[in-house]
């Protein structure tokens, strides 16, 4: 039950983040066809609850690393819609002045340290950040988000081993949509259970339905508590349904590699609808939610307008930031 683990304020804050991530990406879908956002977008619609839920359980000093499918994580950690859209429009007001685009978003000053579009490559970086924490005697956990495809890379297993060896406080979070582009996990994996393998490395572990924000929070809290009691790494595996194509703003069910979910399943697969339902069941007024949606939509519309009107970086910016 939601009420057992979340206060009313927490729930509303989480709802706001869910809606923020969802509306931002829906806005991208609407605007993308104008060909002004010239950056490939890997949308996370369906998976928003995972980064939002995990980061809700950790203090703001927690460093995070991610992938090219990073919008929800960026927004959950920063709520910075101005910078977000600035970057997607390639404008000077983006956090990387347009150099990063969607695939490489980050905001180090808010502890969203780095993302990468080469699969699996930020996993060892998180290891280094966790190493630095123990080195300095800090108690902080480090999180790293990756897809189920990243698990097949050698660097993933090398990182798992080192994290276990050094008892690093690192939370590996698998955003498991069962797909690597168009290829199903069963076509790529010669093993059955990731969690069982990782457990043999002496990891804490947790798993659940990533479409259920409350469950994400419940499982994450359990595991982070274990990590605080006795330091060590953990792996969380949350499944979710990727509503859109791998990259881009469309659906691609007509391509034939997977089935479109039935309408009656949508309520279960959509983390926003699902959380909304729970909020209503817990007695929250529909107007309170509507007010949040309106406020968030206005914020997003303002940020998009700002980004559209912002200047591009000047030519000399090309040569800035290579080395100090």
């Amino acid at each position, binding site marked *: 039950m939601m009420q057992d683990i979340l206060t009313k304020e927490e729930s509303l804050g989480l709802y706001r983040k869910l809606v923020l991530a969802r509306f931002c990406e829906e806005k991208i879908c609407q605007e993308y066809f104008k060909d002004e956002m010239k*950056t490939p977008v890997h949308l996370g619609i369906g998976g928003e609850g995972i980064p939002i839920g995990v980061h809700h359980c950790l203090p703001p000093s927690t460093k995070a690393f991610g992938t090219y499918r990073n919008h929800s994580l960026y927004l959950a950690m920063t709520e910075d819609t101005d910078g977000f859209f600035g970057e997607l429009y390639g404008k000077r007001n983006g956090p990387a002045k*347009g150099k990063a685009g969607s695939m*490489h978003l980050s905001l180090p000053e808010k502890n969203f340290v780095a993302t990468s579009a080469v699969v699996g490559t930020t996993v060892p970086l998180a290891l280094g950040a966790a190493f630095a924490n123990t080195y300095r005697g800090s108690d902080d956990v480090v999180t790293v988000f990756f897809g189920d495809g990243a698990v*097949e890379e050698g660097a993933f297993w090398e990182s798992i081993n080192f994290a276990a060896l050094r008892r690093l406080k690192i939370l590996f979070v698998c955003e498991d949509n069962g797909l690597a582009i168009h*290829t199903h996990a069963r076509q790529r994996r010669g093993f059955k259970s990731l969690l069982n393998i990782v457990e043999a490395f002496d990891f804490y572990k947790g798993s659940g339905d990533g479409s259920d924000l409350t469950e994400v929070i419940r499982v994450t809290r359990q595991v982070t508590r274990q990590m605080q009691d006795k330091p060590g790494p953990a792996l969380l595996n949350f499944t979710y349904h990727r509503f859109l194509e791998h990259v881009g703003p469309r659906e691609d069910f007509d391509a034939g590699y997977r089935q479109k979910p039935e309408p009656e399943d949508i309520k279960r697969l959509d983390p926003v609808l699902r959380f909304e339902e729970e909020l209503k069941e817990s007695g929250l007024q529909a107007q309170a939610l509507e007010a949040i949606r309106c406020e968030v939509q206005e914020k997003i519309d303002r940020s998009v307008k700002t980004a559209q009107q912002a200047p*591009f*970086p000047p030519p000399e910016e090309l040569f800035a930031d290579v080395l100090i």
Partner: protein
Amino acid sequence: MTQTMMSYRDGLMLAAAHEMEADPDVFVFGLDVPDHKRIFGSTRGLVEKFGEKRCFGTPLSEDAMTGMALGAAISGLRPIHVHIRVDFMLLAMNQIVNMISNLRYMSGGKLKIPLVLRAVIGRGWGQSAQHSKSLHSFFAHVPGLKVVMPTTPQDAYSLLRSAVRDDNPVVFLEHRWLYDIEGEVDFEKIAPLGKAAVRKEGKALTVVGTSWMNVEAVKAAEILAKRGVDIEVVDVRSIYPLDEETIVNSVKKTGHCIVADYDWTYCGFSAELASVIHHRCFADLKKPVERLGFAPVPCPTTRPLENLFYPSAVHIIRTAEKMLGLSPTDLDGESFYSYENKFKGPF
């Protein structure tokens, strides 16, 4: 008639299909090779025709899959390992640079490595720093690898067939924008590895181009031809082995040379080529060789900076004008990046 109009992607696809028909030991594999997008169409039809035994996808495991290709090659098979971006081949650099390139030498010439590593390179659409490189200079730096960059559909077809038949490891680099180019392909035509091609004859100046830069160079030559300036365009085609003769003959004739490379210039292939040309054409050169390439930075996402990152026909024209002492050509009304207009993102 063996002559047909086709796209570069179809040239690649047919070369693989024809080699697979001719030799049951040839197989094609790599991440996403058999999905419905088929590596931008370049592996279309292969799994239907040859089955999953000879055309298959892999886990995301570039390092081990490259080692597995090498193991298969030294066991007598002829793998074609495909990477949708050369940037991901970097995960396999240990296998490529410590194993594939060395193993024949270290076996005293006993092992044979008939292996093709296909990879897509270059500019797509807002692809940023991790999906945009070429890296031919990296690969060609290492003894024991052949490095090929086809520009035309004919070369996509003929050079891939030669690469598959070669008993050496061949890195085969295909620019993303070239995939849509259409051209005549003659199936009978053989293009041996290690031969350059003159794309356009001229007397005033030689542009030696790699990959996409040949498209830019031909465009530059067309524009300069309107004011009577005759540019010769030489397509290197094979980075290693290098056809010095064709390049040197051209530069001896024109006395001016621009190396238009599609890579960073520092410690790059353009420096290698400039050195060869200075050495062999010293007495014939009227000006030092000029080099064009990527800006010396990681590739940025935002369009105005991305445009500045990549070399283009305009850079070639402006450099040629300076070398030949010409006033700047009025470029208003000229259309550039013609293939980009056809190209639709996001990949």
